[in-house]
C-alpha cells in the first residue's frame, strides 16, 4: 500500500497532535465505579420481607438549629441516639421508626451553655431524660425521600409531627447489612412547653432538628 506524501503528512500530524494532547492531559485516571445501586434506588432494595434495623448509636446523631437574639442560627447536637427502623418495601408502613434521643447528651461545645440546656429552662433532663419519635405512617416521595408521620414526645408533651426522611444509603459488607437515613423536621418548642426566651425573642420558637441515623440489620 502506497501512501501519498499528503496522506503521510496528514497521518503523521494527527498522530503528533494526539500524542501531544495526551501528554498535556497528564496520566490517565481510572474512572471510579459509580456507587452501588442502593444509593440511588427509589425503593428500599431487597425488602421483600420485613427487616428491623437497630440504630448504631456511635454513628448516629441529632442536630438542632434555633435562632438566637433574632439574628444568627445556633447549632447544638445530641450524641446519644438509639432505636429501631423497620423496612418492608411497600405500603404505608414501608418505613417505620422508633427513635429515642437521650436529652442528657445535648452538647453545644460550651460547658455553661450545656448546663443551661439540660436545666428545666429547656430540656429538663432530670425530669424528661428522653425525647422520642414513634412513627404511625409513611409515604414514599420522589427519589430516596419519604414522608414519615408520627408522634414526637419532648419535655413530657406528645404532638403529631411529620418528618422528611431521606434514605442516604444501604450497603452490605463483612460487618453486615447497613442502612442510613436523615430525618429533618421543624418543631415549635413552645407547643412542647419549652418557652424560655420565646416571649422576649431571645431564642427562636421554631427549632429545626436533623437526625442522622445509621442502622444495622438485627
Amino acid at each position, binding site marked *: 500500500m502506497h501512501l501519498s506524501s499528503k496522506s503521510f503528512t496528514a497521518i503523521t500530524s494527527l498522530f503528533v497532535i494526539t500524542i501531544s494532547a495526551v501528554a498535556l492531559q497528564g496520566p490517565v485516571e481510572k474512572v471510579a465505579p459509580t456507587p452501588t445501586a442502593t444509593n440511588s434506588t427509589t425503593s428500599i432494595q431487597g425488602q421483600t420481607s420485613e427487616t428491623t434495623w437497630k440504630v448504631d448509636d456511635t454513628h448516629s446523631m441529632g442536630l438542632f438549629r434555633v435562632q438566637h437574639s433574632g439574628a444568627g442560627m445556633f447549632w447544638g447536637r445530641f450524641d446519644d441516639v438509639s432505636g429501631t427502623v423497620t423496612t418492608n418495601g411497600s405500603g404505608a408502613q414501608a418505613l417505620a421508626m422508633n427513635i429515642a434521643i437521650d436529652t*442528657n447528651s445535648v452538647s453545644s461545645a460550651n*460547658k*455553661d451553655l*450545656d*448546663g*443551661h*440546656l*439540660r*436545666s*428545666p*429552662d429547656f430540656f*429538663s*433532663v*432530670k*425530669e*424528661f431524660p428522653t425525647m422520642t419519635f414513634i412513627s404511625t405512617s409513611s409515604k414514599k416521595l420522589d427519589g430516596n425521600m419519604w414522608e414519615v408521620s408520627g408522634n414526637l414526645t419532648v*419535655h*413530657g*408533651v406528645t404532638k403529631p409531627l411529620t418528618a422528611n426522611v431521606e434514605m442516604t444509603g444501604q450497603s452490605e459488607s463483612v460487618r453486615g447489612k447497613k442502612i442510613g437515613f436523615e430525618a429533618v423536621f421543624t418543631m415549635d418548642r413552645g407547643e412542647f*412547653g419549652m*418557652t*424560655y*426566651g420565646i*416571649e*422576649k*425573642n*431571645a431564642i427562636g420558637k421554631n427549632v429545626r432538628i436533623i437526625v442522622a441515623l445509621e442502622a444495622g440489620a438485627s
Partner: protein
Amino acid sequence: MEMEILLYAIALPSFVGVMFSYCGNLARKISVLTGFNGCALAATLLLSSMSQESLIQFASQNRWLWFPLTTFMIAVLTDACGLFKKIMPLRIYIACAVIILGAALLLIPSWDNLSRRLFLGVAVGGCATVLVLVVEKRKCFSTSLALSFSLIAPSVLAMLSGFAKLAIPLGAVAFCLGIISLIELVRQMRGRKCLGLGVGGGVVVASIAGLGSATGFGYDTTNIPIWIWVLSAAAPLGLCLGEFPGICSRQIPSACARICGCVILAVVAILMCVLFQNSSASSLYK
C-alpha cells in the same frame, strides 16, 4: 430582654410583696393579727415564678413550680394561724407540720422516695423553728437585711447550675426582703417600733432557702456537691451569730453579727460552688 425580666420577674412581684407586707403591718396595729409577711414573700416567689413559666400543666411538666406553690401553701397556713388567738402559742409547731407536709408534696426529680422528702421537711422545719425564735426576738431591720443576703446563695447556686427560672424568683424574694428591711430602717430612724418579719416571715424564709435549694439540687445537672446546696439552705441560720454570748446583749454588734453571719454563709456557699465548677472544668480539659 433584661429590662423585661427586671420589670415582670423582679420589680412587679417585689412591689406586690412589699404592698402585702405593708397592709399586714397596718393590720398588726389595729388587731391581734401578726402580719402577712409570710404571704408577702411567698406571693413574690409565686408571681415571679409565674412570669417565668405558665402554671398550666404544671403537674405534668415544669414540676419545679410545685416549689413556689408549696411555699405559698405553707405561708397561707402559717399566716392564717395568726387569725386565731387560741392557737397562737402552737403556731411554730403547726408551721413545722405544714413545712413537712409541703416538703412531702414537692416533686423533685430523683426524690421519689417519700421518706427522703419527709426528712427534708423535718430538717427545714428545724431550721424554721430556730429562725422564728431569732426573728421574733430581734425585731430590727438588720434581721430582714441579713435574711435578704442569705437568699442570694440559693439564687446564685441555681444560676450557676443553669436553672435561671429558679434563680430569678429566689432573687426576687431577696430583693423584696431588702426593700422590707429598708422600710423598717426608715421606721426605726423615725423612732417608731419595728414590727419585724413575724413567725410567717421566718417560716417562709426557711422554707424558701431549704426547699428552693432542694429543688435546685434535684434539677442540677452540673453535679454541684450536695453539701454546697445544704450550706446555701442553711445560710439564713447565720442570724444565730448575733445570739452568741457577749454580742447578743449589745444592739449594734448583734445586728452586725446577724448580717455578717448570713453574708459569710452565703458567700462561702457561692465561692465553694464557683471553685468546684472551675476545678471540674479544668479537670475536664486536662
